[in-house]
C-alpha cells in the first residue's frame, strides 16, 4: 500500500527517539481527525472507513520499535508485567504490581479488541517469547482477581460535570490524591450535578474497588444528596418533631441501648 501522506516533525536537532510517544500518538490522532473531516463535537470516533493507518511497517503485524531512556528499568518493568499477567496465584505482592498496571492493561485490551488482534511487547533481536501478550480478554481476566463491585456512598466536591460522548462528573474526594472521574446515570442527573459545581455532595452509586486497598477504580453516580446539619437548635427541634421525642418516654436511654445491642 502506497502512503497517502507523511506526517513530519521538523525542527533543528530533532531526533525521532527524542519525541515522546504521547506526542506522536496525539499528532497522528489530530491529523487523522483532519484527514477524515471529523467534527469532534458531532462524531465521537473517526469512522473506520475514514481512518488513517501507518504503512511501511512489517506486513503481517504492526511493529513499532521504541527506545527508552532508561532501558534497564523499562525491560525490568515490562518483564514484571509479563510475570503478573501469567500468574494465577493470589500472592499479595503481585496484586500491588497489578494495581499499578491495571489501567494500561485495560487500554491495551481495548486496543486489542478494537483492532481484532493482540498486542505483544518483545525485546528487540531476541528469539524468545514476548515479554508479555495482551489480548482482548486480558483485562477481564486480571480484573476478576482484583476488583470488587458494590453499592456505596462517596462524599466529595463536584469539580467538573458533562462530556461530549459520555456523561461524567469529576469529584475531589478527601483522602484521595487524584480526582475521581465518575460515570453518571442519565442526563437529568448530570444537569442536577451541574447546578452544584464546587459544592460538597454525598453521591450514592455503584463502585468498583481495587481489592485490599479499597481504592475506588470506577464509580457510577446514581443519585446524590446534600445533607446539612444547619443550626443545631433547629436541627434538634426538627428531629424531635419528626419522631425523636419518642425517646422522652424511655426512662433510661442508655439502658435501652444496652438492651438493643444484646
Amino acid at each position, binding site marked *: 500500500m502506497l502512503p497517502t501522506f507523511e506526517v513530519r516533525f521538523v525542527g533543528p536537532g530533532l531526533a525521532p527517539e527524542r519525541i515522546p510517544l504521547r506526542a506522536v500518538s496525539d499528532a497522528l490522532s489530530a491529523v487523522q481527525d483532519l484527514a477524515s473531516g471529523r467534527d469532534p463535537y458531532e462524531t465521537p470516533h473517526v469512522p473506520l472507513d475514514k481512518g488513517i493507518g501507518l504503512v511501511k511497517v512489517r506486513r503481517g503485524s504492526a511493529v513499532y520499535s521504541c527506545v527508552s531512556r532508561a532501558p534497564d528499568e523499562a525491560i525490568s518493568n515490562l518483564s514484571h508485567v509479563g510475570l503478573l499477567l501469567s500468574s494465577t496465584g493470589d500472592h499479595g505482592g503481585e496484586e500491588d504490581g497489578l494495581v499499578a498496571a491495571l489501567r494500561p492493561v485495560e487500554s491495551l485490551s481495548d486496543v486489542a479488541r478494537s483492532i481484532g488482534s493482540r498486542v505483544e511487547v518483545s525485546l528487540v533481536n531476541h528469539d524468545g517469547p514476548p515479554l508479555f501478550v495482551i489480548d482482548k480478554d486480558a483485562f477481564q481476566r486480571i480484573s476478576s482477581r482484583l476488583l470488587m463491585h458494590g453499592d*456505596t456512598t462517596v462524599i466529595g466536591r463536584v469539580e467538573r460535570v458533562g462530556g461530549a460522548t459520555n456523561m461524567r462528573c469529576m469529584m475531589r474526594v478527601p483522602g484521595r490524591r487524584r480526582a475521581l472521574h465518575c460515570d453518571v446515570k442519565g442526563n437529568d442527573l448530570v444537569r442536577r450535578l451541574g447546578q452544584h459545581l464546587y459544592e460538597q455532595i454525598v453521591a450514592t452509586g455503584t463502585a468498583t474497588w481495587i481489592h485490599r486497598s*479499597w481504592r475506588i477504580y470506577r464509580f457510577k453516580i446514581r443519585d446524590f444528596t446534600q445533607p446539612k446539619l444547619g443550626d443545631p437548635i433547629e436541627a434538634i427541634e426538627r428531629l424531635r418533631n419528626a419522631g*425523636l421525642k419518642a425517646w422522652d418516654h424511655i*426512662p433510661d436511654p442508655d439502658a435501652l441501648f444496652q438492651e438493643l445491642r444484646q
Partner: protein
Amino acid sequence: MIAGIDSMVLVYAGWVPSKNPKHSSKYQELNVRAQLLLHKLFREKALVLLPTVAISELLVPVPKTEKGTLIAALTEKFICPSFDVKAAAIAADLWSQHRNMPKDVQYDKRHVLRADVMIVASAYAAGASDFYSHDQKCRDLAKLLMKAHDLPTDDPGDMFLKNDILSGDV
C-alpha cells in the same frame, strides 16, 4: 472534617429533662455535652455521618407512623452511609484487631461489639476521619481506625455557649 457520630449523641441532644426525672442529672449533663458537640460540628462546617445501623437504633421507640418522617429528617441533616461491602471488610478487620486489644478495653459481650463494629466501620468506610461517642469501648474500637472523641465538656471556641445551653438561651 468528616465526623461520624453514635446514635446516642442524638438521643442525648434531644433529651427533655422533665420527662425523665429518675436519671435527670446524668442526662442533663449529657444533653448539654451532646448539644456542645453539634454546635462545634456546625461551626466547623463538618460533614456529619450517622450510619444507617445507628438509625435503626434511633427508630426503635418511634411509632410506626412517624418512622418515615424521622428517617427523612435524619437524611436531610446527616450523611447516612449503609453497611456496604467495604464496611463489611473493615468490620471483619476490626473484629480481629479487637482480639488483640488489652483485655480491659475489650467488649464483654460479643453482640454489643457487633453493633459498634458495624457503626464504626460504616462511618470509616464512608470517609470519616473522626468519631464521637460517649461510650468508652466504642471509642477504643474507633481509635483503631480514626480519631475518637468523647462528647465535649465545654466549647473552647465560645466561652458563653455552655451557659447559654444550660439557661436555655440558645
